[in-house]
């Protein structure tokens, strides 16, 4: 789960990481009141969970209250990269002397948390990594021991933090590390971490919490849905409620696979043969017929899906269960959309029989099946276009 900037900054404060004085506002009046309380100039920051918010006009400075009113009116209700702005963070403006980059994430190779830091902040870490890889300090941390004070100091020395900010920096980094572990973060990022006229300040926050750990972080659950937060599409949220691992894409071939790897392979193959996947939908292991039924129905009812391509390798999953689920869905929804099924493995012959009885053609080879799905989809688009023009 991604946290909004203001949520991340609330955690920052809890862990002793200094942030500029700020107030969250949901209306123009609240924004003006906040600015009045903080004192102008202020910065208005759209609270949306998309990258490149600054470049898209989501962060603006306002020098006086009437400017706050005017700019807050513009921002609230507008869209930043397609995401509606419901909240602003109104922050007291500070004078920036220098911008640093600081984050903690997970290093897959060492299986440890890793601190990434750079004296070149304010831009994406990807950009620093690409253009000045030598400017990034990387230090893995022993997750059993945590970040020791001396390690934080070593990073401060490597970044060339001025003496007067050294101990603040070390404490701040230790706070960030504790936040990272206490909140099961996948990423805890401060960019920029700025040296300002008010001392060291975290000017932005980016915190992503491991979804698998949310059961132990009930304080983060605001009641707002993932769709409302802009983290999922409406269909993704619906699929999540059905317990399906689903990612919406912009093509028209609905994809169902069992296993994430096989499902991605299916998407890739459709694309390889010139088609466009409408989604990633992984049934997971040992899928029951109910699960297959739900998934099939879900995609058959999805407006963007023109053709369904179901690709199953029956290992622990039984092909007869899969076939039963497909048939249940088809019977309920009707076979409005063409369907291509590849089904091999455990109990494959029973499965084939079940499907053939309702007239669904079954493949044993996923490549042949992919080719057919692509062909059907392009025909369907043709028909559909004809329909519109006719």
């Amino acid at each position, binding site marked *: 789960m991604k946290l909004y900037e203001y949520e991340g900054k609330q955690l920052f404060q809890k862990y002793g990481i200094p942030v500029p004085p700020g107030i969250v506002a949901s209306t123009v009046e609240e924004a003006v009141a906040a600015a009045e309380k903080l004192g102008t100039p202020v910065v208005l920051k759209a609270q949306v969970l998309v990258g490149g918010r600054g470049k898209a006009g989501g962060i603006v400075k306002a020098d006086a209250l009437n400017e706050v009113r005017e700019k807050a009116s513009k921002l609230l209700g507008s869209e930043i990269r397609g995401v509606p702005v419901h909240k602003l963070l109104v922050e007291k403006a500070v004078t920036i002397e220098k911008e640093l980059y600081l984050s903690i*994430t*997970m290093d*897959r*190779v060492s*299986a*440890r*948390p890793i601190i990434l830091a750079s004296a070149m902040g304010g831009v*994406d*870490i*990807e950009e620093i*990594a*690409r253009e000045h890889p030598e400017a990034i300090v990387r230090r893995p941390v*022993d*997750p*059993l021991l945590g970040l020791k004070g001396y390690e934080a100091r070593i990073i401060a020395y490597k970044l060339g933090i001025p003496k007067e900010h050294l101990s603040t920096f070390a404490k701040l980094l230790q706070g960030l590390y504790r936040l990272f*572990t206490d909140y*099961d973060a*996948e*990423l805890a990022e401060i960019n920029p971490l700025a040296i300002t006229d008010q001392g060291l300040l975290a000017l932005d926050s980016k915190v992503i919490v*491991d*979804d*698998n*750990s949310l*059961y*132990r972080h009930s304080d983060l659950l605001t009641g707002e849905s993932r769709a409302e937060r802009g983290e999922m599409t409406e269909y993704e949220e619906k699929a999540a409620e059905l317990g399906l*691992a689903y*990612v919406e*894409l912009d093509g028209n071939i609905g994809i169902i*696979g*069992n*296993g*994430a*790897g*096989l*499902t*991605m*392979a299916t*998407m*890739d*193959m*459709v*694309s*390889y043969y010139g088609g466009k*996947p409408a989604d*990633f939908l*992984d049934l*997971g*292991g*040992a899928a029951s017929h109910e699960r297959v039924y739900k998934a099939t129905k879900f995609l058959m009812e999805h407006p963007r899906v023109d053709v369904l391509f179901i690709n199953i*390798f*029956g*290992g*622990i*999953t039984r092909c007869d269960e899969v076939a039963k689920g497909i048939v249940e869905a088809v019977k309920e929804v009707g076979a409005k959309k063409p369907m291509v099924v590849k089904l*091999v*493995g*455990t109990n494959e012959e029973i499965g084939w029989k079940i499907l053939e009885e309702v007239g669904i053609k079954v493949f044993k*080879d*996923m*490549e042949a099946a992919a080719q057919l799905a692509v062909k059907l989809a392009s025909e369907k688009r043709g028909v559909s276009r004809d329909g519109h023009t006719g």
Partner: protein
Amino acid sequence: MVILVDENTKVIVQGITGRQGSFHTKLMLEYGTKIVAGVTPGKGGIDVHGVPVYNTVEEAVAEHPDANTSIIFVPARFAADAVYEAVDAGLKLVVVITEHIPVHDTMRFVNYARIKGARVVGPNGPGVISPGKSKVGIMPGNAFRPGKIGIVSRSGTLTYEISSALSRAGYGQSTAVGVGGDPIVGTNPIEVVKMFEKDEDTDLIVLIGEIGGDIEERVAAMVAKGEITKPMVGYIVGRTAPPGKRMGHAGAIISMGTGRAEDKVRALEEAGVPVAETPSQLVSLVKKMLEGR
């Protein structure tokens, strides 16, 4: 020789009385895996498919001192504790099937196991099979047959699909390792590839990768440096996955500028590792490399 598991592997099943644990105990026994004991707290004294169940791993190991491996089916919230229990009891290989374990838990138990000289495989993976010798996992045994191909994969089903295609084409496997779909795993493909390089029963390595992280790039770098000399064929999925989205596996995500399939494919190809675009291509590439030798 094969890697990780073989005929000397003696398994304790943690969470043996659960639905999954019990079901796969049966399948592993049918495959010929030597399962010596099961553990479920509070269920000590019963047996599951003839396997005696204990309350604690400590007790199970005391009764079955030849046990050397654990496979874990316990729910995510209790899985970390189960790993500590296995490692502290002296088991040297711990295969974690459980998915949805918080990744900070995984980081801690993986590092703990390292200190104690134990190896974790998984979590969120199908386990390990050395066909004909031992299966410590949930893969369908009939998709594999003994041979000389070492498979390391971040995916489950895709591996079965590919190994069964390889098997049909006459290419059996020395060992197939599903490292698990999480961002942090106990044994990553780099380590598995190194094991295959040393394994005299492996002639060719199949690396099945996916988006997320840069482990495949690092394998490519090892090949480029000559640290890996055995022939290798790659297959990378997720070429069509959008950035910033998790594709089923918690670890399958393009983020912070790393993890793109195209970068992995390029790195491997530049290191001289051919990369297939489809499973059937992969089989052809294996054929070509082995016959070309």
